[in-house]
């Protein structure tokens, strides 16, 4: 775990750059985080829809959803999710939304 500066604030992140404390995240950080991890900017309404959905799910369930769950419940199809967050919607959206890395399956 380490700290970093972003949008004039100091936040805690894990080794992969995911936020440790989602309450440290603010909306003006999202475009900066997106640029860092290869998400096309400027962020569109659909991006924001997914980011807010990720945060709601995290605060509700304690972990961000997988891409399949996102496709079923976020109102954005899996195909669109891969266009918005190429290479890995669940991980990249979690990073940009300032929530911890989603727990995977074994």
């Amino acid at each position, binding site marked *: 775990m380490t700290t970093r500066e972003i949008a004039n604030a100091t936040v805690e992140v894990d080794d992969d750059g995911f936020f440790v404390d989602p309450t440290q995240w603010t909306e003006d950080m999202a475009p900066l985080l997106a640029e860092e991890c290869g998400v096309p900017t400027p962020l569109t309404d659909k991006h924001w829809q997914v980011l807010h959905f990720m945060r709601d799910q995290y605060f509700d369930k304690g972990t*961000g*959803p*997988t*891409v*399949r*769950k996102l496709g*079923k*419940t976020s109102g954005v199809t*899996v*195909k669109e999710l*891969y266009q918005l967050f*190429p*290479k*890995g*919607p*669940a*991980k990249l959206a979690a990073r940009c939304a300032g929530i911890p*890395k*989603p*727990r*995977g*399956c*074994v």
Partner: protein
Amino acid sequence: MTGQPKKLVVLGAGTGGTLAANRIRKRFAESEVTIDVVDRDNRHIYQPGLLFIPFGLADPDEIVRPRDRQLRRGINYHLSGIESVDIDRQRVLLDNGSTLAYDVLLVATGAVLQPEETEGLAGPGRLDDVFTFYDLEGATALAERLESFDSGRLVINVVDMPIKCPVAPIEFAFLADWYFTENGVREDVTITYVTPLDGAFTKPTSSATLSSLLDEKNIELVTEFNTGEVDGVGRKLIGYDEREIPFDLAVVIPLHGGAPYVHNSPGLGDELGFVPTDKATLQSLVKPNIFVLGDAADLPASKAGSVAHFEGEVLVANIESFLAGEPLEATFDGHANCFIETGFSKALLIDFNYETEPLPGHYPGPLGLPLLKESKLNHLGKLMFQWFYWHGLLPGRDIPGIGAAMPTAGKDTGELVSAGTNREGTQ
């Protein structure tokens, strides 16, 4: 207990439902607890056997037995699909029109294959050049196709996690290497293993071992591939990132979800149809009188028969506590173990739980089977396991030395790795 017997209803007569019903029958008299078990057919498939069918190493007849015959006396078997569960009124509506009321419900309906959720996977090309070995129909048809396959590209693809027995697709790749070598055509066949994970397997230590084995056997590994479409006519996998992987023969493990009735039962399951479950007590998070065993649960454990087996002991103790109105004290540690066939009559064995990575050493103690290492002994263990499955595991017999909790006695714990570093199954 006194008064009216308590009513236990068990949904599903697979590995988990059967062993749990049998253990509970042994523990309680019929005057204390009645047990009703429901399943939609009467064919209990020994699922580890499905891996061997495509290679002619097992016959379909050998791995199927009647479900009702695996249940002890004093258990009522209902042959019917399940329409829905009303978790507030505590009753199960069956497809045959009847209703079963319960005091305690055990959900053990496993995971179902959902090929229709991937574009093209249930369409043209299915059972021609696109197969799965995760059901009996697919495994049997694939046996015939493999017999005549003597050159070209074999692609093995896991669409997404979670899947049952996460090592089985890798075992399939290893056995295919052996099979084509035996048939003298290995040089004319390329084998490619395509996974959505960032390595060969979910757990870092075993992933490294399995990766080097894939390499040794000249099996190409493609990682972080998220299958968007299976084109059975153009014969290629198409990723969401537009990467394409051509094949002459594809063996695809479809998406998995919970049983269909879960979606018809308000409040019972999550988006994928799995039931939210306490990972230690196996009590559901939806109602205190609903427990969950095996693949039907949303636990962060492998969806595998060994997990259902190790859960059984904990589950029965907690159902007993629940019926007595006492706190649930038994806890499950996520213990799983798997034999991994590597071809040429050898196998690896891995043993792990929620917290501990698969370690080298021996199982279940210092004189046991070698862990994380290829050996003929493990292969024999895997073959002998079928006998134990029907005669020990399903009837609910305990075996000395093989307990629910993960053993550490024979392991090299110096290499202890925290499960906190697990590879992620999400994208």
